């Protein structure tokens, strides 16, 4: 057992399990979509997701009727769950872009099996994320004039010097590029599904999505160019989006926010959270649909390694925050860190350190990385830890600022929880709908990884 594992994990090991042909890859992946029934767990998960989505709609409707007063936010903590969840969700999205863009440019072939559903995850996470600032405005239908620059009848533009506006551009650019990247990458697979399905209506639907793809050399050449260009466009976004999100905090002068370490450690945290979420989804999906041949232990090991690296960067960030609070000799900074460690929210801070700093140290051990149960436990710890991190940043910084007269406490209400859990459900529902109607693994890219796909040049005579 150990021998097969280690042979599987050597750098020369094939990224997909041996013994596949072009036909078997195509059949295996497309059969998940082109079937009349889905496995029972699919129905269970999608239904729970659906129920939570309904709860989300209920919570939002009540919010729009009553106003943000139903949430726990109040001065001095004006940013509660809404901003915590925004940052958490947008961070989760980052793995998709990293896998699809940066790993593509770096020629990391192992990205192929996981990029499609990681990109889908990105899009759904961005949808959940973008929802929060919108509903946080209370009256979203009035918000768009100060979010979007258009020649409105008030003769004023949004405040371009505010990071909140940069946010709008960062998130909308990110969403646009992610969707484009995803759709362009789907084109050849749409054609495969169009050709494989027997249902006349589905043939038309997939046919429209395939944009007339015939697989000619010209098509492939244009496709490769477009995909590479989009990857180039998406690459800076991996860095920029979460940097801009971190500016929401760093531009403010609140101790705990006004810090230059935020952009790099937010980006690392985003990739950390994103890979944790990819693993959270990949491990059950792989088991549910028997995709062990395509998402091999090598993929899982690689993702765990990325988590370890980014987790160490994030942990370094926490340590530097504490170090500079001491080194700066600034009493407000010192108090902020001390308050985090020993103040009213101390359990959250220490849980964060445990989940994000201590638990991932287990990933140094190959045994932990290759044991799905222990790895899953670590990824769940990271999912929780990254959420706690945003809670600590948003709440503990605001609740004790410079003047003790403006101190306060933040307690989420059931509406906060319903909205948050609702987006989790919406994410699950969208994810399961996606695996049902679109190939969750890129068929044509996996085909290209087969040994048969390597065409040897004829030796020159």
């Amino acid at each position, binding site marked *: 057992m150990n021998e097969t594992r280690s042979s599987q994990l050597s750098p020369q090991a094939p990224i997909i399990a041996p013994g596949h042909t072009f036909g078997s890859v195509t059949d295996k992946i497309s059969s998940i979509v082109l079937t009349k029934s889905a496995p029972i767990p699919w129905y269970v998960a999608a239904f729970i997701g659906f129920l939570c989505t309904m709860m989300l709609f209920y919570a939002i409707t009540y919010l729009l009727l009553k106003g943000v007063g139903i949430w726990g936010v109040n001065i001095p903590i004006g940013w509660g769950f809404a901003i915590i969840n925004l940052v958490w969700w947008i961070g989760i999205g980052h793995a998709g872009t990293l896998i699809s863009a940066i790993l593509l440019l770096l020629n990391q072939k192992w990205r192929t099996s996981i990029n499609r559903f990681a990109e889908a995850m990105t899009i759904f996470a961005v949808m959940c994320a973008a929802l929060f600032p919108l509903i946080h405005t209370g009256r979203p239908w009035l918000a768009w004039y100060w979010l979007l620059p258009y*020649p409105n*009848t*008030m*003769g004023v533009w949004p405040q371009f010097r505010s990071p909140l506006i940069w946010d709008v551009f960062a998130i909308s650019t990110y969403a646009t590029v992610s969707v484009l990247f995803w759709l362009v990458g789907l084109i050849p697979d749409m054609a495969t599904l169009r050709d494989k399905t027997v249902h006349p209506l589905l043939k038309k639907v997939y046919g429209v999505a395939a944009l*007339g793809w015939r697989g000619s050399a010209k098509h492939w050449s244009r496709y490769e160019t477009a995909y590479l260009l989009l990857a180039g466009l998406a690459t800076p976004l991996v860095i920029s989006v979460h940097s801009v999100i971190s500016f929401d905090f760093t531009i403010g002068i609140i101790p705990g926010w006004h810090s230059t370490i935020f952009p790099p450690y937010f980006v690392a945290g985003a990739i950390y959270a994103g890979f944790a979420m990819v693993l959270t989804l990949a491990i059950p999906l792989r088991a549910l649909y028997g995709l062990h041949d395509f998402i091999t232990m090598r993929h899982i090991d690689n993702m765990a390694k990325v988590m370890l690296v980014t987790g160490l960067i994030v942990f370094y960030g926490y340590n530097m925050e504490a170090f500079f609070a001491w080194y700066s000799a600034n009493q407000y900074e010192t108090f902020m860190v001390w308050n985090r460690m020993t103040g009213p929210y101390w359990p959250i801070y220490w849980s964060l350190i445990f989940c994000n700093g201590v638990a991932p140290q287990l990933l140094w051990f190959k045994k932990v990385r290759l044991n799905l149960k222990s790895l899953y436990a670590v990824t769940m710890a990271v999912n929780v830890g990254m959420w706690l991190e945003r809670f600590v940043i948003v709440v503990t910084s605001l609740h004790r600022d410079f003047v003790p007269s403006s101190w306060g406490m933040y307690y989420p209400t059931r509406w906060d929880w319903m909205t948050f859990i609702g987006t989790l459900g919406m994410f699950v529902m969208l994810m399961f709908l996606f695996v049902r109607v679109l190939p969750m693994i890129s068929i044509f890219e996996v085909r290209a990884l087969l040994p048969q796909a390597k065409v040897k040049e004829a030796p020159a005579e």
Partner: protein
Amino acid sequence: MSQIFTKNANTLARASLVAVVLAGGVFGWLIVAVPRSDYITRVDVPRPQPVPFSHKHHAGGMGIDCRYCHTTVETSGFANIPPTKTCMNCHSQLFTNAALLEPVRASFRNDTPLAWTRVHDLPDFVYFDHSIHVSKGVGCATCHGRVDQMPLMYKENTLQMEWCINCHRHPEEFLRPRDQVFNMQYQPPANQIELGRRLVKEYNVAGVQQITSCSTCHR
């Protein structure tokens, strides 16, 4: 395998590209144009009133000063609508039997005010004060237009914020000497900018930064 799409699908696909661009353009144009249309702003649309009162006749033809009826305009935030008694000052003697004026007489007899339809109605979240504008040299006609030429009252300007703030950003383009505020025939001189700058100083008009601050109008 038979073809899924007929040959005209190619044309449709190309046309859809053009359609998306066109739809985007139309949408952009709608966003800009609809909120500024007369349909939304009610500019140039006379409102039905209980009595078809003509400013053209009274202010233009008769030459009655604005302040004869709107007595509080110089001292109060609100330029008042005159009580029926003000009408009856003249109309107890003039056109005493005109059917058109029966609502006025009925209002006077029954001691119930006339229910005029308000034409210049700012949103409730806007604080507007007539007296400060009058005392800093903003003419009546600058905002209300040539009321002395309006048979029935209508809005000359949109009263939208971009219109308000245009003047708050460049007050020197619109100010006139105080003694010309109620002059309906006033024409700005050729050296308006020069005059405006002088008046801004003379009347101690607050700096642009202050009068374009949010809380100047949204208190």
